[in-house]
């Protein structure tokens, strides 16, 4: 992605501002000092990265921890070592050996060893109640972890996992102190103590989170900042705070209109960075609730959505953007437009699509279909819901749009107490295993909330997960998508576009197509204020 100071005119004139580039932000020499103030839109439900998947935790907690591997700043998706100095995969890809950096210090001044890595990964792979782990499915192929010496960790695999390097680079795999975990396995839930560039100072719920530079950080000369202050505020307050220079950044993303307002207010001091986003909206049909157990009904609903038309218009008013399949459009794994147009609901002839949808509903005896569409009462979910309701009306389907609070939405999703819902899915990497898991059988993955059972999809999923040859794996991903689109248990609606706007004083931060990585702030520094 390009990172540059832009005026509003420039922003409006260059809609594709966000082409990814490898260059880290290097305007001038990095300077030490200063406190970065940035906004986060939600409160963290826990401090434990192993047990959650929300940015509300990641954006606050990531600066306090390290991981084994990480994505190279400014060069996504290249993977580099974090606390791992180097690593080696056995030729059969069933053993991975990591050599750790020496003298990596925890914030309590103890030295990180392979035992800390083992204890942390063991906690994610096989959590002992009451500990839970959101990462457990990702590590299902790891058979054992060995620590032959204090600086060596060996992972033994049950079978080949093509996505394992991305899994090791996951920003959620924070390394905790084995000694602290031995005292209390749930220590990280309410305590923050890692080897990251910043020490934890305080968290005042509903107000702020403060971190202070850790002078014992293992990367020489880092971090540049004296500290950071993450302030909890609503999205509309963020726009005003950034425009009024009370905060310097927000790392998740704004709508196009919010971007323009901030750019108008900050003028030359605004920096806009745009990219596609590993986050997409889905229409999920509950296979346990008739008539959504009928493939004809599900496919009819997918056929009714004018994704291409919706994309062009909705990207002007919301964070919704590109049309895509099940992997991020533009990523190395994504389908071409021509391939997409072969899927039901992706054809350009909407009159034909809608006629086919009506035919399918008639055939299924669901001509006067009426149902409740569960959705979040938050943007851009509401925008997406309005679009879907309008599209379904055009094939004669009446929809009651039920907008609920986040907790009720999660509860409905978890319990299966919904007919059709607007769902979303985000991951930290484009690796197909990470993203296709959303579409497999419910008994294989809790995130597949359509509650379907489709063994053919499961088999394709497993096959691609083990395929090392990229070209062959890509073909398997295409076959998976074609099958999943035809069965339409869950179908993509639109992908999001990531628009990050910050004060141009913030330097050294890397933009990525996910808001979950590059949040440890180790390379971030503050340029002096313009006079």
């Amino acid at each position, binding site marked *: 992605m390009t990172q540059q100071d832009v005026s509003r005119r420039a922003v409006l004139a260059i809609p594709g501002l966000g082409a990814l580039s490898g260059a880290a932000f290097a305007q001038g020499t990095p300077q030490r000092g200063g406190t970065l103030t940035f906004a986060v839109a939600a409160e963290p439900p826990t401090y434990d990265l192993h047990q959650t998947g929300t940015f509300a935790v990641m954006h606050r907690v990531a600066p306090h921890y390290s991981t084994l591997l990480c994505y190279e700043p400014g060069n996504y998706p290249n993977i580099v070592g974090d606390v791992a100095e180097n690593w080696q995969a056995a030729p059969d890809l069933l053993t991975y050996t990591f050599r750790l950096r020496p003298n990596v210090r925890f914030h309590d001044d103890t030295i990180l060893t392979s035992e800390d890595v083992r204890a942390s990964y063991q906690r994610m792979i096989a959590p002992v109640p009451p500990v839970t782990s959101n990462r457990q499915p990702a590590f299902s192929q790891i058979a054992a972890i060995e620590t032959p010496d204090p600086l060596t960790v060996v992972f033994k695999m049950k079978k080949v996992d093509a996505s394992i390097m991305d899994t090791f680079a996951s920003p959620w795999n924070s390394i905790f102190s084995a000694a602290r975990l031995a005292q209390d396995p749930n220590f990280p839930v309410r305590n923050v103590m890692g080897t990251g560039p910043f020490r934890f100072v305080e968290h005042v719920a509903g107000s702020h989170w403060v971190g202070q530079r850790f002078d014992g950080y293992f990367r020489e000369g880092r971090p540049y900042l004296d500290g950071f202050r993450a302030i909890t505020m609503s999205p509309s307050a963020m726009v005003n705070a950034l425009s009024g220079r009370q905060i310097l950044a927000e790392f998740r993303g704004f709508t196009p209109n919010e971007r323009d307002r901030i750019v108008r207010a900050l003028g030359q001091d605004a920096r806009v960075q745009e990219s596609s986003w590993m986050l997409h909206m889905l229409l999920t049909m509950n296979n346990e609730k008739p008539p959504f157990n009928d493939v004809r009904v599900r496919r009819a609903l997918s056929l009714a959505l004018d994704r291409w038309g919706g994309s062009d218009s909705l990207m002007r*008013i919301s964070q919704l953007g590109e049309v895509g399949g099940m992997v991020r459009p533009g990523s190395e794994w994504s389908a071409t437009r021509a391939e997409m147009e072969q899927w039901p609901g992706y054809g350009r002839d909407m009159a034909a699509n809608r006629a086919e949808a009506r035919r399918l509903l008639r055939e299924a005896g669901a001509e006067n279909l009426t149902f409740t569409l569960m959705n979040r009462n938050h943007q851009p979910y509401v925008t997406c819901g309005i679009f879907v309701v*309008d599209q379904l009306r055009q094939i004669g389907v009446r929809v009651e749009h*039920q*907008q609920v*609070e986040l907790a009720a939405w999660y509860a409905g999703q978890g319990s299966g107490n919904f007919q059709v819902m607007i769902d979303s899915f985000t991951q930290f990497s484009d690796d197909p295993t990470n993203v296709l898991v959303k579409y497999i059988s419910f008994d294989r993955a809790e995130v597949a909330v359509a509650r379907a059972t489709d063994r053919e999809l499961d088999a394709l999923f497993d096959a691609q997960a083990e395929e090392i040859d990229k070209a062959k794996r890509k073909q398997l991903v295409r076959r998976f998508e074609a099958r999943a689109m035809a069965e339409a248990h869950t179908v993509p609606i639109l992908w999001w576009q990531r628009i990050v706007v910050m004060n141009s004083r913030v330097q050294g931060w890397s933009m990525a197509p996910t808001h979950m990585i590059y949040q440890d702030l180790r390379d971030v520094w503050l340029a002096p204020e313009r006079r």
Partner: protein
Amino acid sequence: MSAVTTATTLPAAALDRPRRRNPVLAFIVAQPLGAAGLFVILAMGTAAVFAEMIAPYDPETIDFAAMLEAPSWAHPFGTDAFGRDILTRIIYGARTALTIGFFSSFIGCTLGGLLGTASAYFGGLADLIIQRFVDVILSFPIIVLALVVVAVMGKTSLAGIDLNLIFAIAIPIVPRAARVVRSAALSVRAMPYIDAARAGGYSSGYIILRHMAPNVLAPFLILLTAYVAQAILLEASLSFLGLGVSEPKPAWGLMLAGDSSNFYQEAPWMILFPGLAISLAVFAFNLFGDSLRDWLDPKFNS
């Protein structure tokens, strides 16, 4: 002669009878501001009932070709971020506002009225308990109470109307109506015909419904109109907060929320016209309610 006699006697008889004026005309003459309020309410009611015939567009159909259009002949109040005609959505929004406003107010005032009348009738310990309960409920601000109720009850729709929203708005009205009606019912309770009914062996329920309730109808009607305004405002507030009516159903408060807060600088008509509609409706009901009170209350008349 007889014809002359008849002619001279009839007007005299007519003069002896009290002059009967049309009550609507009498109200308009006595309360011109209230009449203006009534006119606006009737206009809203007409818009609500005949929305399909009056509105130029469908309120829910998206027209991406007309996104964020400024007011014009084609769209007199402009369009929103989805290209939906704002005038159309305001006309249909009147239906939402009046339906929820009227039913909430009616349910709240009726339950409150019955509770207040019963409290006055029974007196003693029952009155004490009921009034302390009313005090507790009254201690919550009306919007806070409605927020809690709607958050706890969730949503239950019937024909596109959220029944729980109606109850959420009605519940905070109950104690307020109960307190006012009780004060009117206390004087009715002291009337001899109530004692006579009790002496006649009628049940308490019968006396309350048959003899007391009709005699507190005037304050009940005044409360009803006053709380319709309050209910419209509450519905708009809850919809604005995302707890009321759901998109794409047209509702004035909802029109002020969502994308309006995102586009109010570029498209001020998105908030101007729904805001005006809410203000006008509340103002009209308040004017009408105040005038009705003045007109029906003998103290004010004297």
